[in-house]
């Protein structure tokens, strides 16, 4: 729609409309590294909050038939330090700490005595690759009941923290830890976990990214408070803490 107006009037209208865009200048804050570092950390925190809200505790990740599983040889070894931190498999025990009724040392045999779940699920790396593998283990939720963790509907403990033999560490929101597909995994492809994949025990949660799947587990702790700056090896460097899928 063309209108005809005086040059002065057009300039006045243009100027007024231009000023209405001023709030967009606020986005310019992202151009300053000092400010933007904090802002994008907040952005990830907001994303993590939204991801937690989106998470459906009973919605299962896709599972696959045996023919869709990649050959064991093509399942990548991913590690942050050493592929084999030299765990003494004979003497290994899982240390249980925190808000539980039965803290202490647990053997692999005790964990293997729990109902065994075998599932073919997709392991997705934050880098962008993914691989369908076969995993066997005990449900984390079953083990948490065994140790008397506070995982009931009321006043549920909020986090599961793990530390590893190779000094890797992680923390998981309780809803994800209690997901029916979240495992303390001790088998891959029907064989005991090999050293490169985290023997004797690792996390395997198809609703989480790969960096959340800590290997060579040493200690687990049930807690309501995460230690700031110690929420996860990669998370402390900037990865999303929720890391959910």
């Amino acid at each position: 729609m063309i209108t005809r107006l005086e040059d002065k009037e057009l300039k006045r209208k243009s100027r007024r409309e231009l000023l209405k865009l001023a709030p967009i200048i606020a986005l310019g804050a992202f151009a300053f590294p000092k400010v933007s570092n904090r802002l994008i950390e907040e952005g990830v925190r907001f994303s993590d909050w939204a991801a937690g809200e989106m998470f459906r505790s009973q919605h299962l990740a896709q599972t696959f038939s045996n023919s869709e599983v990649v050959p064991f040889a093509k399942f990548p070894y991913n590690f942050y330090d050493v592929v084999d931190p030299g765990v003494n498999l004979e003497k290994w025990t899982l240390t249980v700490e925190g808000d539980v009724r039965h803290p202490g040392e647990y053997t692999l045999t005790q964990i293997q005595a729990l109902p065994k779940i075998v599932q073919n699920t997709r392991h997705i790396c934050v880098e962008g690759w993914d691989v369908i593998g076969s995993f066997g283990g005990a449900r984390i939720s079953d083990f948490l009941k065994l140790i008397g963790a506070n995982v009931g509907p009321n006043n549920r403990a909020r986090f599961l923290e793990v530390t590893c033999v190779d000094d890797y560490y992680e923390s998981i929101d309780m809803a994800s830890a209690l997901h029916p597909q979240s495992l303390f995994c001790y088998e891959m492809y029907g064989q005991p976990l090999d050293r490169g994949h985290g023997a004797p025990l690792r996390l395997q949660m198809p609703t989480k990214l790969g960096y959340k799947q800590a290997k060579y587990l040493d200690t687990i702790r049930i807690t309501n408070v995460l230690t700031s700056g110690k929420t996860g090896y990669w998370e402390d460097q900037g990865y999303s803490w929720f890391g959910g899928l």
Partner: protein
Amino acid sequence: MADEPSGDGRREEIKKEGIRDDVAGSEPASSAGPEVCEAVVAKLEMVADESAPKEPVPVEARAETTAKAEEAELVRAAYEHPLAIRITHWVNAISLFVMITSGLRIFRAFPSFGPKIPEKILLDIPKSLTLGGWLGGALQWHFTFMWFFAASGIFYLLFQIFSGHYRTMLFMPRDISGVWPMARHYFLFGPKPPAMGQYNPLQKLAYTSTVGLGALSLLTGMVMYKPTQFSWLAFLFGGFHLTRIWHFAAMCGFLAFIPGHLIMVALHGWANFFSMFSGWKREPEYQE
């Protein structure tokens, strides 16, 4: 008017003089005296007709001339871009820049669409074209600006639909026939088709496509971010692997659009560029 005697007045005068000469009869010039006198009067009448205004100017005609004179001082302008469109355009422009550069950094962490083993590099994107410094930093930018991108995109769509403003830019079947003449004008120096509205058919095609690209990148991004929570969407896009390819393809689409868009903006001058800030376009090339 007062200084110049009207033709009629002069005619009267001459007639009187003629009559007076006649009446005086001191020496009639000839027998044909009155005839000569009449011829002189006729001649003078002709002269008077040419030099003096014939009739008073009608009132309406006088108003028209005045309007024409004033109109010359007025500027033709159109309010092309409502505030909502301008805000979303610029928020989107900034977001898209961040999403593409940080996205390329994320892609660099695994520059392939195949399996992890054997490792392949499909595209080696120079670090200088990327944002975030490393994968974690790039993800922070990506996970922050995806909210701006999504919010401005959704707000844009709702505004276009409910304001009816989409009619200026939505590519419709009737625009198909106008695409080729416009493309021929731009790329092959063909004749310029007349401007029919705010946007020509090729512009409508390009702008409508970018809305589609935005929707595609948002939806595929949701699948890559939460493939389990949005498993139904992953299924629609043909699975997790294809989704990653669609997401990349949407970015390629934007990379095809953006340089063309910038070149066109550069070629069309300041008034056109400034209209995306002020909403008002001075002297648009289309009529009404």
